[in-house]
C-alpha cells in the first residue's frame, strides 16, 4: 500500500519583506509546491490579532509543521512567538487532553546573518544554531512532535550576491517533497546539526 502524501504547513514570518533576499524567494517557491499550505503570518495578521481557532484547525489538518523565518535575536520574529503563546493552548497542544499535535513532525527553516563558525562554542555566538533553538525543540517535545534539525542558511546577508540563494531553494524543495513522500530519513534528520548537511544520504530515492 502506498502511503498518502503527507501534508505540510509552512508558517512564514518576516516583518520586513521589502528587504528580504532569501526568505521571500524561499517562501514564494514554497507556495508553488504540492501538498504544502504556505501561510504568511505577517500578511494574515498585520495587527497581531491571531485567530486561534483557525490556526488550531490548520495544525490539525497537516502532518508536518514548519516555521520559516530569519533568526531575530537568536529566536523567532515576534509574531511567531505570539502565535505560539496563543495557539498552543492548554488542552490543545499540551495538558490532560492536549494531544492534537502528537505524532506530527516539526522543523524550522532559518536564515542566519552570522557564519556557521560563529555559531560554535568557540565562535562569537557561543552556541550552535541547534542549541539556540532549544526552546522550540522542547516545545515540540512537550507537544509530542518529532523534532528535525533546522534547515539553515548562514551568512544570509551575502548569500544573494554570492549566488547561493538558488541552490538553497533547490535543496529546500527537495526536502519538502521528501517530507511529503515520506522518503526522508527521520532518524538521521533528528540527529543532525542542520538538515541540509548531506541531502543525498538524508533523502532515500
Amino acid at each position, binding site marked *: 500500500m502506498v502511503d498518502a502524501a503527507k501534508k505540510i504547513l509552512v508558517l512564514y514570518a518576516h516583518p520586513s519583506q521589502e528587504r528580504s533576499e532569501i526568505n521571500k524567494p524561499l517562501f514564494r517557491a514554497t507556495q508553488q509546491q504540492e501538498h504544502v499550505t504556505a501561510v504568511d503570518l505577517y500578511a494574515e495578521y498585520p495587527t497581531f490579532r491571531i485567530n*486561534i481557532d483557525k490556526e488550531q484547525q490548520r495544525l490539525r489538518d497537516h502532518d508536518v509543521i514548519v516555521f520559516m523565518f530569519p533568526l531575530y535575536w537568536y529566536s523567532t520574529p515576534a509574531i511567531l512567538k505570539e502565535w505560539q503563546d496563543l495557539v498552543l*493552548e*492548554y488542552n490543545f497542544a499540551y*495538558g490532560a487532553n492536549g494531544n492534537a499535535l502528537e505524532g506530527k513532525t516539526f522543523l524550522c527553516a532559518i536564515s542566519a546573518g552570522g557564519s556557521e563558525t560563529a555559531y560554535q562554542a568557540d565562535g562569537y555566538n557561543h552556541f550552535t544554531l541547534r542549541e539556540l533553538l532549544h526552546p522550540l525543540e522542547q516545545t515540540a517535545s512537550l507537544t509530542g512532535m518529532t523534532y528535525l534539525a533546522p534547515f539553515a542558511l548562514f551568512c544570509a546577508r551575502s548569500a544573494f550576491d554570492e549566488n547561493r540563494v538558488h541552490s538553497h531553494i533547490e535543496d529546500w524543495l527537495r526536502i519538502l517533497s521528501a517530507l511529503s513522500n515520506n522518503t526522508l530519513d527521520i532518524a538521521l534528520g533528528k540527529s543532525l546539526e542542520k538538515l541540509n548537511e548531506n541531502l543525498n544520504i538524508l533523502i532515500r530515492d
Partner: protein
Amino acid sequence: MTAYFIQAFIYLAAAVIAVPLAKRLGLGSVLGYLIAGVVIGPIAGLVGNETSTLQHFAEFGVVMMLFLVGLELEPRMLWNMRHKLIGLGGLQVGLSTLVVMGIAFAFGFNWSIALTIGMIFSLSSTAIVLQTFNEKNLTKTEGGKNAFSVLLFQDIAVIPMLALIPLLALPELIEKAQSAAATAAEHHEQMSLVAGLPGWAYGIVVLSAIAIVVVGGNYLSRPLFRYVASSNLREIFTATALMLVIGIAALMSLVGLSPALGTFLAGVVLANSEFRHELESVIEPFKGLLLGLFFITVGAGIDFDVLASNIGPVMAMTLGVILIKATVLLLLAMIFKIKNSDRWLFALSLAQAGEFGFVLLSYTVQNHVIPVDLAQILSLVVAISMFLTPGLFILFDKVILPRYEQTENMREPDVIDEKGTVIIAGVGRFGQIVNRLLVTNGFKTVVLDHEAQQVENLRKINTKSFYGDATQPDLLHTAGIAEAKMLVIAIDNPDRAVELTEYIKHTYPNVIILARAFDRSNLYRLRKAGADFMVSETFHSALQLGKHALTHLGVHPFKAEQQRAIFFETEMAHKDTLYESWKQVTGDDKHLVHYRDMFIQLEETLSAAMKDERYRSFSRMERGWTPPPKENDTAFSKSETD
C-alpha cells in the same frame, strides 16, 4: 431655416447609423464617420454644396482637440519630452518631406510645388490616431507614446509651414488669381489685425497675442473660473470654457496664426490648473461632435468625378505615401530603439496623411502655390490615406500583434507596475487623510472636489487637486477612470455616493471602489451597489475614543485595546448576516422586526465577548495568553505557570 434643420438631421442621422455599426465591426469610429460622409455625399447626393463651408466649421473640432491635447501636457512633461519631440518628430517630418519632395521633383514638378507636397504628406492625422489609440487602449504603450510625440511635433511644425508656404507662391498662379480677383469683388477679404502692417509691427502684434494667451491663462483664468465655479451653474462653466477656446481661436486668426496652435498653447498653460479636468470634460463632447462632423465632411467632400478620372494616379500616390511614411517611421523606430510590436504600431499608425493636409492644401491654393486641379487630386490622396488608416490598425491587430504576442510571451514577465492611479472623489475632512497617506507613500492620486475653496486650500499645501463634480461621468473619464486602479469615494452626499458606485461598477468593473459610508444603511447600500470596501465614517474613530474612555476609567491600556479589537471583530463577524437581513427589509414589518432581532443579537454577542471570565472558570470563550488552570494539572510545576 428649414433647410438647415434638414441638413443637420441628415448629418446626425448618418453618424448615428454608421458610427455604432463601424465600431461593432471593429473598424473604429473614424472610419464610421468617413463612410457616413461618403454615403450621404457622393453616393446618395443628399448633401454636397455646403460641405466646404461646414468643413471650416468642423475644423474647429481640430482646434478643440489641440486644446485638449494641450491640457494633457504639463509644461514640465513637455520639457521632458523634448528629445523625442525634436529628435523623433523632427526627423520624421524632415525625412518624409525630403523623400516625398524628391519623388515629386523626379516626376517633373517645380521644386516649390514638390516641397509643398512633401510638407503636406509629412503630416499624419492626429485626430484619427489619437481617437483610435484611445478606443483601443494603446495610448500608454511604447509605440503609442512615441507616436504621440511625433504627432505633437507635427502639430507644432504646421506653424512654420504656414509661414513658409506664402513665400513659395508661383508668379504665374498669382497673376491668374489677380486677374480673377479683379473681376470678383473683394468680399472675400478676411478680417485681420495685421493686414498691411510692416514686418516689425507684425512681429510685435504676434508676440503680444501669444503673451496674452500665456499671461492671461496663468493669472486671469483662475480667478475667472473660481468666480464662475462659485455660482455652481454648470452651464455657465461650460459657457466660460467655450468662450475661452473660441476667444483664443479668434485672437489667433486675427493676427494670422493657427487657431489650433493658439488653443494648444492655452491648453498647456492651463494644464496645471485645478480646473483642468472640468474643462476637459466640458469641451470633450463638443470636440467629439465637431471632429465627427469633420470626418463626415471629409467623406462627403470626396469628388468621385475627379477620383474616377484619376483613379490610377490617386491610388498609386496614396499607396506610395503610406509606403514611404511607414518606411521612414520604421527606420526611425530602429534608430530610437522602439522594439517589437511597438515598432510596427508606431510605423503603421502614423503612415497616413492628416487633416492638417486639408488645411495646408486650401492654404496653398489661397496663396497660389499649387494649382486648384492638382490640389483636388492631392486632397483625394489625403482623404483616401485617412480612409485606409483603420485598415492599417486592423493589419496591426490581426497580423502583427499575434506574432509578437507569441514571442513576447516567452520572455520573463515584466515587472508589474503596481502603482496605478487612484482617483479620490471628495477631499473634505475624510478624503484628504486618505489622500495624504497614499501620496506620502508614493502613489499617484488624482483628487476631485466640487468645492473650489477646498481645492484651492489643498493646492496651497501642494496637493494636486482638481475642481469638478466627481459624480459627472465625463469628468471621471477625463480624470482617467478608465485606466485607474482604484476609486476612493469620500463625497458628502450619501445618495450620490451610491449612484456613483453603481455607475462605476457597471461601466468600469475593474476599478476597485473604496467608499466612505455616512451610516449603517448607507454602508449597506454602497455594498449592494458593488463597492469593494466600505467603512462608516465615524466607526473607527468612535471605537478609538471609546478605547481611551476605557483607559481613563482604569482599564489597562493593553486590555482596552483588546476590547476595542474584540468589539470590531464581533461587528465584522456579523456584518454579512446583518446585511442579508437588511436586504430583505422591504418596508413590511415582519422583515424589519427580523433585522431588529439580528441587531439585538449582535449586541448580546458583543457584551458576551467583552466579558472577562479568566479567573472564574477555564472557558473556551475566553482566549489568549491563557495559563493552564490552577488545579488539576500535574504536568506542570506551579512555578512555571504563575
